[in-house]
């Protein structure tokens, strides 16, 4: 049984609001919350200083590529879990584009079992189609029975509209959500970066914004047709935000996320042909950044999800157009989010809203209240730190923020009542 904890001096911020309180944790749950609850702590409770810090529900990542099984040289469920814990996450959703992909119960069970040894809770997303090939539906019922709540062929979108329609119809009955990587493969072609002024100058094939928007528009129509629940992964263009805004206004069951890097980086970052800045969807333009941030502010976009995509150094040492897309995100997402959003909104987008989409609420992301499962994080919002790729817990080094000085750092992370990160260091 884990040791009881007394978190002292924090400002608690959750969906219920903001207040000064100490928090007592024991037996995996929150025992007491309030200004004078220190007395309620068991005598042997470990005291964690949280003065000057914000105590919030643990963060929840809707979109992490943990690479296991199949690409353990890039990341494992355990190393990805450690990175998540350091990033303030209490739960992550592992993406199914592993090798083999999570398109059957056996692989889902394997990843879930690996997750038990991870410092954070690992939920699994399943594939929509067998082999993520976009043709036959994966056994979604069998996977749902294991607790899978999110299905996606992420890495690619389901290209065939008829297949996507069937999947939405089928998922509706199961009460699960489909998550789409919106990209028309033919329009995207061999594109290696955003199509625009920079790609034209650099002579790199581009992915037009329309490649994403065409599929967002199609899937909005399919959500209307089927009444299915649809989540848009990593939206990257101003046009996509507008399409989702209208779909929500119409009352369709759609949600959307944005990746942190799409809030702070543009295609100009590709000027040096460094494949670290190659990502899918690609880094877009200033105007897209502005509209994505506005989408978060007005609630059109529900969540910030990392799209944490580790790649071993040799994979990123390729020519730009041959290198695989993707960048790390778990350890930097919170600070990046705080650089563009106020604290409460940032936490909503990183914790309770994604927890609801992932079907992990209220165990994760729920209000910090007596009797709640103790999945918490303590953040020092004014601490500054410099990103050193060599010191990341991820097995890979492909962070786009190397050398950046960020503000806002995770101090403690508590998962199911266990302090897994204390004073910015992993425990055990």
């Amino acid at each position, binding site marked *: 049984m884990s040791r009881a904890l007394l978190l002292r001096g924090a400002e608690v911020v959750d969906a219920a609001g903001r207040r000064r309180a100490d928090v007592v944790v024991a037996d995996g749950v929150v025992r007491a919350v309030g200004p004078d609850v220190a007395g309620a702590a068991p005598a042997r409770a470990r005291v964690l200083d949280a003065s000057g810090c914000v105590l919030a529900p643990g963060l929840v990542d809707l979109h992490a590529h943990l690479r296991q099984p199949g690409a353990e040289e890039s990341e494992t469920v355990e190393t990805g879990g450690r990175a998540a814990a350091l990033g303030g996450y209490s739960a992550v959703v592992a993406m199914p584009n592993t090798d083999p992909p999570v398109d059957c119960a056996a692989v889902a069970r394997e990843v879930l079992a690996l997750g038990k040894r991870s410092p954070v809770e690992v939920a699994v997303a399943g594939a929509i189609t067998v082999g993520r090939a976009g043709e036959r539906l994966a056994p979604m019922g069998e996977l749902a029975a294991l607790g899978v709540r999110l299905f996606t062929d992420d890495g690619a979108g389901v290209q065939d509209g008829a297949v996507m329609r069937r999947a939405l119809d089928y998922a509706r009955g199961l009460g699960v959500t489909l998550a789409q990587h919106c990209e028309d493969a033919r329009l995207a072609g061999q594109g290696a970066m955003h199509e625009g002024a920079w790609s034209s100058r650099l002579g790199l094939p581009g992915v037009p914004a329309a490649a994403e928007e065409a599929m967002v528009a199609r899937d909005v129509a399919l959500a209307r047709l089927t009444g299915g629940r649809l989540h848009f992964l990593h939206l990257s263009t101003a046009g996509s935000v507008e399409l989702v805004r209208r779909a929500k206004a119409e009352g369709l069951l759609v949600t959307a996320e944005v990746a942190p890097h799409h809030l702070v980086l543009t295609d100009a970052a590709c000027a040096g042909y460094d494949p670290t800045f190659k990502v899918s969807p690609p880094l877009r333009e200033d105007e897209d950044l502005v509209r994505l941030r506005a989408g978060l502010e007005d609630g059109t976009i529900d969540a910030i999800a990392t799209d944490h995509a580790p790649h071993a150094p040799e994979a990123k040492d390729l*020519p730009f157009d041959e290198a695989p897309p993707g960048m790390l995100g778990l350890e930097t997402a919170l600070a990046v989010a705080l650089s563009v959003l106020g604290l409460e909104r940032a936490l909503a987008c990183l914790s309770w809203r994604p927890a609801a989409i992932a079907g992990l609420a209220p165990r994760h992301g729920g209000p910090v209240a007596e009797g709640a499962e103790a999945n918490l994080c303590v953040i020092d919002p004014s601490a500054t730190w410099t990103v050193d790729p060599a010191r990341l817990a991820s097995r890979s080094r492909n962070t786009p923020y190397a050398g950046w000085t960020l503000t806002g750092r995770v101090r403690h992370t508590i998962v199911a009542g266990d302090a897994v990160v204390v004073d910015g260091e992993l425990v055990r």
Partner: protein
Amino acid sequence: MTHLLSIADLGREGIEEVLRVAEAFAEVGSRPVRKVPTLRGRAIATLFFEDSTRTRLSFETAAKRLSADVLSFSAASSSVKKGESVRDTVETIEAMGMDALVVRHASAGVPVQVSRWVKRCKVVNGGDGWHEHPTQALLDCFTVCQARGAIGGLRVLVVGDVRHSRVARSQVLAYSALGASVTLVAPSSLLPPSLEGWPVEVADDLDAALPEADVVSLLRLQAERGSGAFVPSLREYTARYGLTARRAALLAPGALVTHPGPMIRGVEIASDVADLPQALVTRQVANGVAVRMAVLFLLLGGAM
């Protein structure tokens, strides 16, 4: 300057310096002994991950005329086939004591990446994807300078598949840096998706543009890169953008025609036009050696 990766690395003064030094090397090419001891003891490797006989031969001839040792690497007959990465290849070859690497690759940006991987080698871009082919643009400028005395104030048409052309990107930078006005003439599907920041005008009608031109730079239609799909047919392309004998007659007296080669006679240039005296195609090839000597000399021996 430590590398030649883009025309932008040179700027106006750098380009002018290359052209001036190239003139001295052009004279070397006309001597009974076409070789100078300038880079004796230096070693230059040509790393061609994409085949190109003429550019490779031109660089190797240039290096040999400078008395440098030349190591020739071609991806087709190498460890790359066995799966070795570009980075490992570069590091291995540099370790053999090379002073300069001439890099050609089908992917844009590889010479830029190579310049980050080398410890002390100078890197010369021998053509990368659709990005740039700086020495080709320099030799075009040199050839035009020889014929017209100067570039400033000339009206240059760049005709054809600009979208997929590394030559066009380098030419636009070089000609405009030297004070020429550049007009792109192409089907709009073969223009880059964005021309923001390009110092160019765009025209659609070749017939209307030709009489005003001092220099017409014809680009190759990159059929092997799938450019064919960007126009309805080669026939229609030639009809609208080929330099036919009828169109050649529209050229002002003294106007020049350049082509980076290899030419597809009958598509972008009619056979009888390619042989006209204004067509500088073979002189471009000869000048290519002098310009590449100048670049290698300035990087390895001179003040660059």
